[in-house]
């Protein structure tokens, strides 16, 4: 996927115009940076002039008359140079990190608004690197690359101007080398950009090999294919080695050209300008300094150009993310009345009762071409308990997605308390919603922070009440720091069962009118299993609940069971009705029954 994009990137002016809004904020900093950068160049240009003066005036003129003044001036210039360089680097640095921060913030903000279709179509790792790494590349482009260009371009222009002023003929001869060099360098750069991309790909292949060799160790051992895997790996690393050396050769040639060019400039000065030394050694030496110093800026400028070229991919991806329009969006009108996700107008919110109704709903996923629901109608009055059953991957979450308004019906309406969900804001609905996931998702932080996630205003008393209701209080008591205990990244410091219990408590604290529960299939020990079972019953009581069910008891007690196969609802009814029908549900149920009974006997 990424490979394709690298070629696709083709924005006008390398996408830089799109960055201007982000640079505007730092206009003053950037201007100061550029001014100081120009002053710094002035200092760099002045130093050879100072040496020229020393040679011409003191050495050739055999006098030390102005030497104290000269030293003072020299020191002053050095100090001035240090100060302007300090300001320009500091400003470039600050701009870089600030632009990075703003871009990350903008991207993160936007992600909070994007619809689920976006998250379903893009892998987490992919989105993650948009936020964390593309932004960095862009930040350094608008600060360092800009500053380097200023520095080196002005040095180049400045040195040419000084040389022209002092000896136009000699200057022209030296300058003649430049166009040649620029052409050569750009040829190299183009090859380098391509080679570097190949190296990046090979590198990730090798990391992938390591990953496979380690996670697949058991399989590799049982199949006795260590040798073969090793051979395959060796051929990948051999390719990498070849490419690496190839790139080094290119870089070497590049540097070689650089070296020769600057020596050529020097040779020209000596050959055609040697006569100057007879009268003014200082001027001759100054010419040598400039002629040699000119090549470095040229190299930098070519580098900067290739930076811009490679970074346009990052700009493209980032601006595409920022430009993605959410599929599910509140209308202007709704936002005016109810507020948006960041600034809700809670005073205008009607209380939610919890009635749900599907009214002639047809639905197809934005990236799919088949309708998974067609003219589906169902009334779910407040307090009812709906179970959704079906095999893994059968599309059980579709109904849940519609109720939560993670997706909107392609046709028809989903009514909440008798009104189209689209007439109220997303946050209005979500604030009345509880969600317990199959793989419970905790955020890094303390247990308390996680519990308060759904209800930041909950009191200590309410917290413990919720914990006790789902027997998660023991989990907390076992921790040294109790509620303040750290749960680790993604809650990894807790066991799966513990995470589940905490996430039930979190849902209870939020006290939602509508609860969505995706039951876990993962096996936990019997005791925990019983606790979870009890917790589920506690949590769903007194709410409208939709449960993606795997446990028999949950299914049996449901008011209505929807049976899903291949993305579509194939049967619906109560447990007894469905068993009577002896259909698909019956088969699913007996299999589940068999498995549960067997493992309960074996445990």
């Amino acid at each position, binding site marked *: 996927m990424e490979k394709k994009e690298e070629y696709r990137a083709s924005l006008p002016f390398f996408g830089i115009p799109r960055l201007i809004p982000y640079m505007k904020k730092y206009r003053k900093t950037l201007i100061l940076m550029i001014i100081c950068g120009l002053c710094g160049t002035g200092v760099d240009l002045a130093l050879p002039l100072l040496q020229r003066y*020393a*040679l011409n005036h003191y*050495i050739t003129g055999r006098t*030390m008359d102005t030497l104290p003044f000269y030293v003072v001036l*020299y*020191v002053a210039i*050095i100090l001035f140079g*240090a100060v302007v*360089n*300090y300001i320009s*680097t500091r400003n470039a*640095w*600050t701009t870089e*990190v600030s632009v990075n*921060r703003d871009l*990350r913030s903008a991207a993160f903000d936007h*992600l*909070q608004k994007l619809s*689920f279709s976006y998250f379903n179509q893009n892998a987490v790792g992919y989105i*993650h690197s948009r*936020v964390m790494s593309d932004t960095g590349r862009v930040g350094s482009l608008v600060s360092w690359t800009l500053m380097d260009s200023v520095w080196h371009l002005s040095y180049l222009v400045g040195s040419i101007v000084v040389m022209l002023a002092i000896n136009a003929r000699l200057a022209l001869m030296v300058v003649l080398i430049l166009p040649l060099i620029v052409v050569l360098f750009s040829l190299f750069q183009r090859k380098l950009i391509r080679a570097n991309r190949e190296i990046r790909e090979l590198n990730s292949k*090798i990391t992938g090999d*390591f*990953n*496979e060799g*380690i996670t697949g*160790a058991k*399989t590799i051992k*049982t*199949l*006795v*294919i260590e040798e*073969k*895997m*090793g051979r395959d*790996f060796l051929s990948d690393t*051999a390719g990498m080695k070849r490419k*690496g050396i190839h790139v*080094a*050769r290119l870089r070497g040639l590049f*540097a*070689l050209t650089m*070296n*020769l060019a600057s020596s050529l400039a*020097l040779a020209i000065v*000596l*050959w055609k300008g040697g006569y100057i030394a007879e009268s003014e*050694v200082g001027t001759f030496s100054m010419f*040598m300094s400039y002629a040699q110093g000119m090549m470095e800026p040229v190299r930098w400028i070519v580098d900067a150009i290739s930076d811009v070229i490679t970074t346009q991919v990052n700009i493209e991806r980032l601006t595409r993310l920022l430009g993605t329009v959410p599929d599910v969006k509140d209308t202007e009108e709704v936002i005016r009345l109810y507020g948006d*996700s960041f600034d*809700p107008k809670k005073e205008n919110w009607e209380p939610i009762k919890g009635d749900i109704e599907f009214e002639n709903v047809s639905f197809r996923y934005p990236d799919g071409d088949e309708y998974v629901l067609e003219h589906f109608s169902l009334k779910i009055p407040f307090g009812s308990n709906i179970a959704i059953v079906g095999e893994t*991957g059968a599309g059980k979450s579709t109904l849940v997605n519609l109720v*939560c308004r993670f997706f909107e019906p392609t046709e028809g309406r989903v009514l909440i308390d008798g009104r189209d969900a689209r007439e109220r804001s997303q946050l209005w609905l*979500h604030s009345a919603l509880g969600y317990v996931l199959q793989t419970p*998702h905790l955020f890094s932080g303390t247990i308390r922070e996680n519990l308060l996630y759904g209800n930041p205003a909950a009191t200590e008393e309410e917290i413990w009440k919720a914990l006790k209701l789902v027997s998660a209080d023991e989990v907390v008591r076992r921790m040294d720091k109790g509620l303040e205990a750290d749960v680790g990244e993604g809650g990894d410091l807790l066991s799966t069962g513990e995470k589940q219990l905490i996430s039930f408590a979190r849902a209870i604290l939020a006290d939602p009118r509508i609860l969505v529960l995706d039951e876990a299939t993962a096996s936990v020990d019997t005791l925990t299993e019983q606790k979870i079972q009890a917790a589920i019953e506690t949590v769903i009581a007194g709410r409208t609940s939709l449960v993606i069910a795997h446990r028999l008891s949950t299914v049996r007690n449901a008011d209505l069971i929807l049976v899903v196969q291949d993305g579509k609802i194939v049967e619906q009814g109560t447990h007894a009705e469905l*068993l009577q029908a002896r259909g698909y549900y019956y088969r699913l149920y007996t*299999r589940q029954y*068999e*498995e549960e009974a*067997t493992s309960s006997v074996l445990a």
Partner: protein
Amino acid sequence: MSETNTTKSKPVRGSRRTGLIWRFLKGSRGFFLLCMLCAVVSALADMVTPQIIRVAVDQVLGGASTETLSPAVRDIVAAAGGPGYLRTHLWIMAAGIMAVALVKAGSQYGFRVFNARGGETLVKTMRDTLYTHIERLPFQWHMQHHTGDIIQRCTSDIDTMKNFISEQLTNLIRILVLLGLSIAFMLGMNIPLTLIAMIPVPVIIGYSIRFHHQIWEGFQKCDENEGKLSAMVQENLTGVRVVRAFGRERYERDRFDGQNEYYTSLWVKMGYVMSRFWSTADILSGLQVMLVVVFGVVFCLRDQMTSGEYIAFLSYNGMMVWPIRMLGRMISEMSKAGVSVERIGQIMDAEEEKDDPEGLTPPLNQEICFEHVSFSYEGSASEMLHDVNLTIPAGSTLGILGGTGSGKSTMMYLLDRLYDLPASGGRITIGGVDIQRMRLSHLRSGIGIVLQEPFMFSRTLKENLMIASPGMTEEDLREASRTAHLEETIDSFSRGYETFVGERGVTLSGGQKQRAAIARMLTQKAPIMIFDDSLSAVDTETDAKIRKALEKKFGQATIILISHRMTTLSKADRVLVLDHGRVAQLGTPEELRSQPGLFREIDRIQSMTREEEVTA
């Protein structure tokens, strides 16, 4: 966690780590040597150009006598036609500069290329050694270490080590050579001025080293906080459902912005510190140059120096300034490489499995015997298996029934020697030969296992299926897929056998993966076949079809089936019921059905559902 496992082996002495680096350097030492040689040549060439300029300024253009030149230089000047001739033929001197430039450019090119050859060879050696080593480490080791941690050692630690040798070390040497030579040439021209030029040098180096040591912590803090910020994004993305369902977008944004702000402020602070350092270094090195410029003037006026020498001296001094500024950073960064060497060394210290070529290679289509087998996993107090005795006749089918943690998979791991049975834990024999005495690769290729959670490699389906037996024919391949009931699935893919699967390809469903793993195992044509609960994700009918096909084609193989399905177990010649690591029941399905116990209990439950007696 992993630290404790690997470091406890033995206290590691520095010399052993040096030995490891030396070993990794095999094959690249020559390149690095050549690279050093080029560095010396290039530095020498660097020294020549100022001399040409000096002669040009003093003797050729300034008309000074050649008496003051060293004899060698004097000879060269004479050979080129003498100062007078050169003065009218300045192009000869320009050509001289170009000649030196060619030597210099050539040697620098050599430096880069030899360095790259050395560096890339080194990386390849390190990666290859580590990969093959890791593949041969016992399964136990794999279980004790985190994948992420090992991968990090195999990637970023290897990079650090490579950079240490092929960038930091070689550049350090290059810089030192350049430094030494420029100082030597400066000394050769004017000793007092050289001494003056040297005064600020220790100050600059010392300041730079101290600074980089101090700033290290700051960078680490930045890294840490970047990690936190990155984790926040990760969690927000993976938990997007929770965030939305609880309507906490604002909270998430504020939390992210807070950390983002803090992280940025750390960097801004670093920016101040770094800018201050750069400016200070600018001042110090600027003053050093000024010192040389001014005192050079004084020496010239005292006739202790010519203007040509003055210019050359400034050139040498210029060559010295930048390396000196770099030195501090390089020295402080080199100390960090030690950590990486240690982390890689820990992996290399772990002992590989031995595939002893002297080991026995008896035929494996024989009776399998577990004799008083007891086993517990390292670090676990409780026994996984306790005094298990079992004989599996050649060519028979054994079914195993047991709950989670009953030790059924462990038995299979022991048979395949994924774990080695300790001497006190009884023994396992095949055809009377202790498996410990067999050659490991012989044993494992003779036992085909389909694991509970099959692993597919990111390659095409065909490559995956043929991975264990590369020589097989297309027909064999189809045969195996047919037996495993995989043909239909494959045909449903538009690219058939060429479909790319695994991490970067098509994701197979649980049942498809299991069937692919079965097909892959069948290509091994092993006399012993183990199905570790490997039909659980396949429906009952397909399960039965696969077993029937197996029976037809591999009737002589000894088969072990771990399953919960009575329909599956009933077809076995004998069934073993394991309960918490002990043999609870053993006998033919009929025998077990007639005696009280787990088997009958489960059979009753499952046949009840089969006989459609379930009620609400």
